[in-house]
């Protein structure tokens, strides 16, 4: 499994699926009209763009912060699902969208494991990327 995930093809397919699902839920939210849904859809579109940039850009500064779109996508999607469960309304398209978002979170978690080895690996990478501005006691120690 790890070997399969480690291949370039798997990485490409996984990234493409994440972007497709993100754009799908963005499109659904933009199609619903109203300020809240429009902002939510634009947020997804922005995160899809960030994810693509993080995945393809060779720039060191972008690579250093490539954990951010993944973390933001998981958090944003989880908040969207939670908001829907609290506020509704519950109808077919809503449930389809939440299903897409649940799969999206799952795929991003798989991608995190593929890239960082584990969720803790992502946390370490995030701390390392911001280490220069962290107080000394919060800086990750070299292994």
């Amino acid at each position: 499994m790890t070997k399969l995930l480690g291949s370039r093809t798997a990485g490409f397919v996984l990234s493409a699926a994440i972007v497709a699902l993100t754009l799908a839920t963005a499109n659904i939210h933009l199609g619903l009209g109203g300020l809240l849904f429009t902002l939510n859809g634009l947020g997804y579109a922005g995160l899809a763009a960030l994810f693509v940039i993080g995945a393809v850009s060779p720039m060191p500064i972008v690579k250093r912060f490539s954990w951010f779109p993944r973390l933001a996508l998981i958090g944003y999607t989880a908040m969207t699902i939670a908001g829907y469960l609290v506020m509704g309304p519950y109808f077919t398209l809503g449930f389809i969208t939440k299903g897409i978002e649940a799969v999206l979170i799952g795929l991003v978690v798989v991608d995190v494991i593929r890239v960082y080895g584990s969720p803790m690996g992502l946390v370490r990478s995030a701390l390392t990327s911001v280490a220069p501005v962290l107080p000394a006691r919060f800086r990750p120690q070299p292994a």
Partner: protein
Amino acid sequence: MKPIRLSLLAVALAAVMAACGSTSGGETPTDPATADVTVTSVDMAFDPGTVNVPAGRTFTLALVNQDSMPHNVAIYTDESRSEKLFEGEMVTDGTITYEIPALDAGEYFFDCSLHPDMTGTLVAGD
């Protein structure tokens, strides 16, 4: 192509198809002419904003959705939305007719569950 890649592609394809479709729950294209009252949703607003309905008996309300996004009609006792009396299914780009339980004479508040800014007044009377 390996099974996992096929699965991922299938999920992405399904998601895109769902996003591009105009699905909503329980659409029932009907003829609004047969309904007791008709409300049109256009440009994110109900027309008319005030609807007169018969009191004391079940009545039918046709919602003609001319917007591209889904709408429905939800009826409350008042603007506080604290007591919901009825919530209809969503309809996208079409017409749905709701059968609404009898209301006592008086004024009621209605909105679209998806777009709380879309509101109107239902006046039940003789």
